[in-house]
């Protein structure tokens, strides 16, 4: 059997996979990290988003063997060891940015990448565009957008600059 070695949420794993095993299957079925969801399996919904070496990717559209040597972060890896939620998780809770919660792990992972990659600031329009790859059937998105805008100052340690749009 082919083997793949990767680091998931800070822990190193070497596991046997088939070449056709998807990264999301490795995470959910081999490692038991079921926080990463499969919504569509057609690369469109974003429920499966994880970070691969810091960048958000759809783990249903990647082979596990392609992640050889990579550092993967899933929703389970965001909170601190003592259980303190990541600011993005906390703001999703505070702003009611979820209803059924199915899309939430992928939403949060995309949102964390979006905020991290925009240290210069983030307009509401940019947040909405940044969520193009994530579908939510419940919330209507408004509270998700609010939660992300509220997480920006917490993650960057300064006030969110007023967008020059």
């Amino acid at each position, binding site marked *: 059997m082919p083997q793949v070695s990767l680091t998931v949420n800070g822990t190193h794993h070497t596991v046997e996979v088939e*070449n*056709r095993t998807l990264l999301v299957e490795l995470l959910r079925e081999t490692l038991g990290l079921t926080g990463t969801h499969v919504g569509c399996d057609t690369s469109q919904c974003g429920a499966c988003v994880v970070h691969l070496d810091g960048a958000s990717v759809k783990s249903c559209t990647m082979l596990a063997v392609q992640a050889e040597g990579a550092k993967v972060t899933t929703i389970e890896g965001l909170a601190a060891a003592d259980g303190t939620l990541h600011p993005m998780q906390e703001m999703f809770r505070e702003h009611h940015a979820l209803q059924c919660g199915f899309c939430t792990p992928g939403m949060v992972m995309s949102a964390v990448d979006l905020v991290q990659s925009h240290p210069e600031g983030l307009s509401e329009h940019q947040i909405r565009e940044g969520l193009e790859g994530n579908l939510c059937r419940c919330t209507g998105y408004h509270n998700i957008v609010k939660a992300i805008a509220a997480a920006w100052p917490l993650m960057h340690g300064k006030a969110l600059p007023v967008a020059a749009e």
Partner: protein
Amino acid sequence: MYDFAYQKPSNVADAVAALGADPEAKAVAGGMTLIPVLKQRLNRPSVVVDLAKTGLAGITAGAGSITIGAMTTHAAVAHSADVQRVIPALAALAGLIGDEQVRHRGTIGGSLANNDPAADYPAAALALGATITTTKRAIKADDFFQGMFTTALEPDELITKVEFPAATKANYQKFRNPASRYAIVGVFVAQTAAGVRVAVTGAGQGGVFRHTAMEAALSKNFSADAIADVVTPADDLNGDIHASSEYRAHLIGVMARRAVAAAA
């Protein structure tokens, strides 16, 4: 998905050898097209040859052109200061492909090799008169695209890089399918040292094509008014549940006028 063997060669020569050794072998770049195709069992490669370690990623700005390695992701092109400076329309186009997660994996080489009739990069390559360098030769964009999902590439031939000449004016306007993110109609207008070119994606039954009537009108007068009366026949255009061929013909005019008006 059917199972397959998997190889990750560490250089281009080994990748070409792996593809040449087996007619059923298939290269994978970002996998944003190939993996969905494999999931649907529409393709059954014996070996998947991963190009990730072949060193084909990177962007260089030359005198009057931008050269992009085949494995460069859409996100890297969209965020490149060099591309934004030399051909801002190309950076903007890359930022309109799919969504951020797709842009983190999908590559320019994979997009051009796939030649999806609704893909964005083929419009830029054709309008700017790009040169596509492969492991065998250099191919002009005019000769590269040969109809829907068809290119001049041979089975064991890989794209290594793409050179885009700088434009004095260029713009890309995309009318998206809101669900799939692909272009229902996309029009790339470019004025380069070689003249004015207009390339249309999303609409043609044979994939990306040049709109020569608009090119002639814009060569005389580069303004949106100059193409206001240019008629686009609907005969050879796609019609589907998203848009009829007549509607696509109409959109080509609208998108082209917007692109000319916005071209900088």
